[in-house]
Structures are given as C-alpha cells and as structure tokens.
C-alpha cells in the first residue's frame, strides 16, 4: 500500500526529470539533429570538446565567473543583511528595495545593464566621460568578464541578503547581550556568534546560487552572447549555439558534461540539509 501511494510522486519524477535527463544523455552519444533520429556516434561529441575553444573557455568561466560571483554575493549579501538587521527608519521599505534586482524579470535587468555598460554611449561611460576615455566594458575580453560578474552579482545578491537576514533574525539576542557583558568587541561578536549561527544557511544558499549561476543563460546571452569571441562563454550558451544550428547531439553533450559538477553541488546541498 505504501509503495502504491508513492507511485504518483515517482511517476512525476520519472516523467518530468528522469525522461528528459536520460534522453539528453542518450542524445549526447548520437549525431541527432532537429527532426531526425540520428545515429549512435559513441564519444564523438565529447572528444570534440577537447579541441573546442568555447568548451575550454566555458570550463574556465565555471570557476571564474561562478566562483567570483559567489564570493562577491556572499560578501555583499552578508553586509546588506547585517545592515538591514539593525534598527533604522523605514527598515521594511529598504528591505523591499533591496529585493528589487532579484524580483524584476531577468530580461529587463540584463538588457538594462547591457545598455548601461555599452561603449561609448552607455550610462556608465557617459558618467565617466570627464575622467577617462570610453571603457570597453563589453568588448574587451577582461572587462567583459568583469561586467558579466558585476551584472550577475547585482541580480543575485538580494537572494543572499534576504536569506542571511532571515538567519540573523533567528539568533537569540541573549547571546549578544552575554557576549557584551563579557566584553566581546563587535568583531568578536560577529565571528563567534553571527558566523556560526548563519553558516548552515550560507552553505545552502551558496550551493543553490552556484547551481543557478552555473546554469544561468540570460545574464550571458543578453550581455555578451558568450563573447567577445569565447571570453564569457558558458555551457548553457554553448548548448544554445549548437541548438541554433539544430545539432541536438552536440547541444546535449554540452549540457551533460556539466552534470557531474551539478551533481556535486546537489550532493553538498543534500548533506547540508541533513545537518538541519
């Protein structure tokens, strides 16, 4: 009877997750194109990746763009959460405003940022006009990475801030009062009370955010299309570009090759959840 009751949930998982995932893995071993079944080609789609400059860039960006974005979101999110946790006038309004970047549609957010970063007539360059010649925010390989990271952090940090803020509010005030009575400085209170109390939340948020950022498409596509050349290339964009020429097998290979990294993130997340 118990097994029978789990059947609907199992069916949903099989249909919505199992079938697409297994299909993608299977496609990645074929030369399937849109509208044609394709043939089994073994590891061809994967061996090609070794010589693919886009793949090498995407791998590097998995560390660079995702790693740096996470770090900055952590710092910014924590700082904003700590500030918003303090008594201040119109605190609820500030909390609402902080959520705006995360709440607005990604398309609007990244198109807006793209327009701001444009060179030479984007808003940022116009503002910097008196100090410097136009900065090629999106066309210079190094600046393009920086711009994409800034945009990704700007859009993503509110999620961190609000999650950390929620964790901060669960810390009993008595802990801080006791620490103050023992003569602990503000920094000591932060490192010995706040950090241990929010660590689990930060870990979960970090894993979720890493998965979102690594799978993020609109931030890259709307800002740089993975360019200039392959400088800001990521796996979702590579997959999309293959779909553009209707190569389902190759597109699936780009999507599948990132699965072990995602699986690692998910394992970390599951472990953290068990700790709660």
């Amino acid at each position, binding site marked *: 009877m118990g097994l029978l009751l789990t059947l609907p949930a199992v069916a949903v998982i099989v249909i919505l997750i199992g079938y697409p995932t297994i299909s993608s893995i299977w496609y990645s071993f074929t030369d399937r194109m*849109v509208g044609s079944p394709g043939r089994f080609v073994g590891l061809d789609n994967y061996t090609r990746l070794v010589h693919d400059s886009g793949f090498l860039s995407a791998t590097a960006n998995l560390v660079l763009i995702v790693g740096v974005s996470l770090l900055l979101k952590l710092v910014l999110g924590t700082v904003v959460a700590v500030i918003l946790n303090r008594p201040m006038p119109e605190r609820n309004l500030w909390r609402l405003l902080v959520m705006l970047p995360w709440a607005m549609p990604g398309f609007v957010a990244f198109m807006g940022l793209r327009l701001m970063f444009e*060179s030479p007539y984007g808003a940022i360059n116009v503002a910097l006009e008196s100090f410097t010649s136009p900065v090629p925010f999106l066309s210079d*390989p190094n600046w393009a990475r920086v711009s994409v990271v800034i945009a990704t952090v700007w859009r993503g940090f509110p999620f961190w801030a609000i999650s950390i803020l929620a964790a901060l509010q669960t810390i009993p005030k008595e802990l801080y009062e006791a620490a103050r009575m023992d003569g602990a400085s503000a920094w000591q209170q932060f490192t010995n009370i706040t950090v241990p109390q929010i660590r689990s939340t930060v870990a979960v948020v970090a894993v979720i955010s890493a998965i979102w950022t690594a799978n993020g498409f609109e931030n890259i596509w709307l800002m*740089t*299309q993975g360019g*200039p050349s392959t400088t800001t290339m990521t796996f979702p964009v590579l997959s999309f570009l293959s779909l553009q020429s*209707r190569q389902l097998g190759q597109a699936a290979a780009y999507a599948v090759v990132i699965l072990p990294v995602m699986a690692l993130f998910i394992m970390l997340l599951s472990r953290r959840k068990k700790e709660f």
Partner: protein
Amino acid sequence: MRHLRKMQAVGSLAAIALLAAGCSTPANNKDAVAAEGLGTPSAEVAQAAKDFKGPFTYWIGLTFPESSNDLEAARIKAWGDNLGIQTQVVKVNQNEVVQQTSGAIEAKSLPSAMTVPYDLMSTMGTGGQLSPVPDSYAAIGEAHGGWLKSIDSATKAKSFGGKVYGVPFGFFGSVLFSRADLLKQKGFDAPPKTWDELLAQSKATQTPPKTYGMGFALSNVLDGNLTTSIMQSFGGRVADDAGKKCTINSPETATFLKWIKGAFDAGQFPPSVVTWDGAGDNNSYTSGESLFIVNTGSVYQSMKKDDPELAKASAYSALPAGPVAQVAPVDPRYRVVPSSTSDAGKILAQDLFKTLADDTYMAGFMENATYGPVLNSQLKYPVFTDSPVHAGLLKQAEKGTAPAFPDTANAAYSDYQNAFSTPRMVQRVVVDKVAIDKAMAEAQASCQKIYDQHAS
C-alpha cells in the same frame, strides 16, 4: 470656478474626440486593406473550412515597424472570419525563429502555416517537415505577372530535388547605408563600390572615438553573417560545388581574414561590434557612431519616423564588391505549410497564401515593411519609387545574388550560417589574436561536422 470646470470638461471631451479620430482613421484604413479582395471561397476551400478542426495557427516573422505585423495579423483574421474559422496569429522574432521552430518540430506542435526565411525553408523542406506547394506557387505567379527570375531560381534550387516548398512574399536584401553628408566633406561623392574603397573612405572620414567607419557586427548574431558574404566576395567558399565538403581553409579565406583583421586593428570598427546584439548596427548608425552599416532597411524605417534629417543625409547603395566578386545575397521570405498540418488545413493554408498575395494588400504591407519585391506585379508598387531603400531593394531584385551564392544553397549551408561560423572565426582572429591558419582550421572542422551530419 464653475466656469473653469466647464472649460476643463469641454477640453477633455475635445481631447478624447481628437484621440478617437486620430486612432480610428488608420485603423479603418488598416481594416479596409486587410479585408481587400476577400470574396466567396471556392467549394473546395469552403468544404475544407467545414472539415478543419481547431484554430488555424499562423506564425508570422516579426518585422519593423509593428504596423506591418498588425496589418498582416488583421488580414489573416479577416480571411478567417470570411471562411468562418478561428485564426490565431503568433508573432515570432525573426532572430529566434530557428529555435522556436526546432522546439516545435521536436514537440510536434508546428503551426498550421508559417513564414520562414530561405535557410529554414531549406532545412525544413529537405528534412521532410514541409508539404510541397507547387500548384499554389504556380497559380500565384501566374496571377501576378510571374515570379522574378532570381526568386524563381532560388525557390527551385537544385538541392530541393525539383520540389517547391514555399511561396515567397518578399525578400530581405542587404543595403549599404553610408553617411553621405560626412563622406562628402572628405571629397567622397559616391558610395564605395568595393570593400577596399569602403575601407579607404572609412579611414579618411572617421573620427574615433566619436565616429567609426565600419559598423558591421562581428558577434554571434544573424547580422554577423555579413562576414560570410564579404569572405565570398574575396573568393572564399564555405563548401565545394557539391555542397558536401567544407572549403573554408583556403588562401582566399586567409586573404579575407587578413583584410578584416587589418581593418579591425586599424580601429575602423567600433570596439563593441564583437558583442553587438541584433540591434547593434541600428543603434550605432542612428546614434551617429558608425559611418557605414549594412542593413535590410529597418533602420531607414526608424529614421524616417524619428530622424528624417539623418535619413536624408544618408546614401543607400548595393553591397561593395570584393577582389573576386560582388556578393549581395537576396534572402527571400516564404510562406510554408508544415507536413504535420491536416489535409483540410493544407487547403486552407494555400488559400490564405493567395489571399495574402493580393496586390492591394501587399502594396499596403510593403509600404511599411522593408521587403524587396518577388513578383512582377509588385514592381509597380509606389513604394519602390518613393523610398530610396525600397528602390535599392528593387535594384537588388534584378542584380542581387542568389542565396548562398557562390556556394550551394542547402540545409548544411543554412546550419553553417545559423551557427554564426564565419563571425566566430573572425572573432578568433581579431579578439583572441589566434593565427589565421589556426582560426581557419577550427572553422573548417566545425563546418565539416555540420556538413557530415547532413550527408549521413
């Protein structure tokens, strides 16, 4: 006080009346054009309308300005109302039509009929996803003075094996926009005839970082595929005449890459061209940043409305020639019927194509949209003499090159273009600074993979 309120009320009423008048006149005109020539349907069509189940869905490729899309949608609705069937028009961004159609093919949810670019018709037709429409093609041609030669040969390309997969209704051409006012100041009275002339004019006239000469996208967008035409004009080829073996890796391609790298390194391109989106060239030209752009004509439509002075200060000419040839591809747009459409739907779709080819309607449609003519009857539309861009398209209809020329138009070539292969090769050279030989070898490998997949 009461008097003031009365005046305010009268003013408000007057404003509403004015607004209503302003809105209703074009709407009535649109409705009149949309309903033009809708008569009693033939017995076969009337029966198909009775047998047809569900709404008749039609995907139209969005074009600029929106009024032309609205007119097309109104025409389709009027046709459906006349037959007593429900219609559903879906506007699809032309930059996304490949992805949307690919998704629909896989999900088996293609519309009853749709408009597609030549490339997509080619891949869908040879992939068995389109129903051939030779009779409609012949009938519409006959009713409108015949098809233009370049369009007819593109529609009956060898790679289609004698089948006609779609009914063309207009073509996108590539028009060179140049800032005639600024070029004249430097003594250039006529638009450049060759790419080298264009480079020379650009070098002499641009004043970076305020203005740059060559506003041509080198990014992963459809506009970036202009680089394929330039490469072909330098003698480079995507594939051999059989359309099976890639021939990117060639001395001619190397010459083209050297030329474009030279121009890029000399600062002739706005630096942001390597990440431009589909509107990059439009924005660059209308903001005064670029002296030259290549565009289908949508920029002219927006300038005509928003910046008539710039429209007047610009010259519109054919694409320049390279050292080997002048490549100015005509890119016809087609109305097609997916093979998944029911038999009754196929009859209705072909009736709709005839309805949409009506000259009074098409003259109104082309007045706004920047399509070139495909039928002899369209040559007489006033827009092709009144508008300089349309006049350029008219010339291109006569002198332009066939799609893919000098390459062979087939599904593999379309997918090569859809993957932005040439602009990506150019980016490897100008951004990543890899050796030309290496960039060509990489492009050759990815191109051959695409061609091999189509051969298997």
